[in-house]
């Protein structure tokens, strides 16, 4: 488990020297080139990435079972297989830093997994899955594209070539079938809109708090990534808003010509009403928002317990899925 090292333990001169080197384009290949603080921030980033990838498996699984045609099932199964591959790649990199994958996956308490609210709810059916690919996979893809392009840790940047090559298919799949269901029937259109209403505010928060609130900026100082939270949110909006406007889907965001940027039609943070599954667009405090994140979505613990408790081999077929 990565632990935060005390600030005063750092050799500031060495830390600053490394920040300058990576900003000048130097790519780190080996642990011995890292300062303690660099090691800390890069392993934390990879750790969260690994947990996010593994979390998608139980989240997408219900939609695999509910997919209406064989082709859809194959598509969802392929996406789940991709995500499992991405998780393997991420945990494998952590092993070079002394992490133990078996322990991380199977012996860790589910509450310790570092997942995001967006993937702490199950994708019940295929329409929900496609909307989640459109909005959520795209949010992840926005982050991983930035990392592939900018990350100063060579092995991480290179590992994302495969990840991004596959993620573009998930996003494309989402775009194609969301449009299909939007135009298919009034009932499927309603379902698309309901799911967009549910997932849009979650995916918009994938990138974290606004830049003005950030106190730790090590990811940027050490060029683990290139774009800030708000810059990545803009990139995501720049893809999502035109797509939804073209298809005709209502989203709470638009392009503001005066500001020359995309803006949300509400003031974050807002809270999900977990009883009704609807967002309350009244702005709350960040403390309230953080509390909802800490508590986690309803599927987080059950999904991870299932991952850790489910049997394989003969037992797997006997137990089935509930």
């Amino acid at each position, binding site marked *: 488990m990565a632990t935060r090292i005390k600030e005063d333990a750092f050799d500031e001169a060495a830390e600053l020297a490394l920040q300058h080197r990576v900003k000048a384009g130097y790519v780190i290949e080996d642990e011995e080139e890292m300062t303690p603080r660099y090691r800390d921030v890069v392993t934390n980033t990879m750790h969260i990435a690994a947990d996010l990838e593994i979390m998608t498996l139980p989240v997408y699984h219900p939609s695999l079972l509910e997919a209406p045609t064989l082709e859809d099932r194959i598509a969802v199964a392929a996406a789940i*297989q991709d995500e499992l591959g991405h998780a393997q790649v991420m945990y494998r990199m952590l092993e*070079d830093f002394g992490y133990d994958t078996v322990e991380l996956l199977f012996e860790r308490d589910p509450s310790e997994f570092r997942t995001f609210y967006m993937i702490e709810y199950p994708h019940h059916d295929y329409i929900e899955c496609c909307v989640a690919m459109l909005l959520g996979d795209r949010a992840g893809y926005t982050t991983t594209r930035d990392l592939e392009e900018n990350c100063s840790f060579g092995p991480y940047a290179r590992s994302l070539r495969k990840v991004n090559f596959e993620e573009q298919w998930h996003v494309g799949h989402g775009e194609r079938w969301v449009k299909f269901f939007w135009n298919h029937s009034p009932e499927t259109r309603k379902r698309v809109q309901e799911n967009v209403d549910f997932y849009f505010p979650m995916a918009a928060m994938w990138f974290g708090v606004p830049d003005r609130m950030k106190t730790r900026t090590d990811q940027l100082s050490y060029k683990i990534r290139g774009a800030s939270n708000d810059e990545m949110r803009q990139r995501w909006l720049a893809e999502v808003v035109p797509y939804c406007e073209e298809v005709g889907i209502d989203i709470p965001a638009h392009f503001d010509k005066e500001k020359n940027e995309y803006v949300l039609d509400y003031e974050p943070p807002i809270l999900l009403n977990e009883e009704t599954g609807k967002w309350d667009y009244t702005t709350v405090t960040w403390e309230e928002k953080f509390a909802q994140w800490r508590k986690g979505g309803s599927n987080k613990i059950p999904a991870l317990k299932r991952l850790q408790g489910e049997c394989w081999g003969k037992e797997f077929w006997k137990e089935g899925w509930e």
Partner: protein
Amino acid sequence: MKRKKIQRKREIGGATPKFYEVFARQTSDDPLTHVGSIEAPNDALAEVRAWYIHDEHEWRELCVVPTAAIIAVTERGKNVKIKEV
């Protein structure tokens, strides 16, 4: 809480994990390129995992090499496997 019983010996093949480097090319004109690294308890499972994890392209050639077999020439003593030119 019910958990799977993980047999470490079976999962990782020994006291410590065993790693393999994955190399591939898409056409016979391409250089054989490092595409990733995997953990596997034995050679047979390493083949399976390489195939399973690195199926992003229809490779013309895909192979695995035990990481321990790689002799570092320019990066002696480091973990670096592949350094970009």
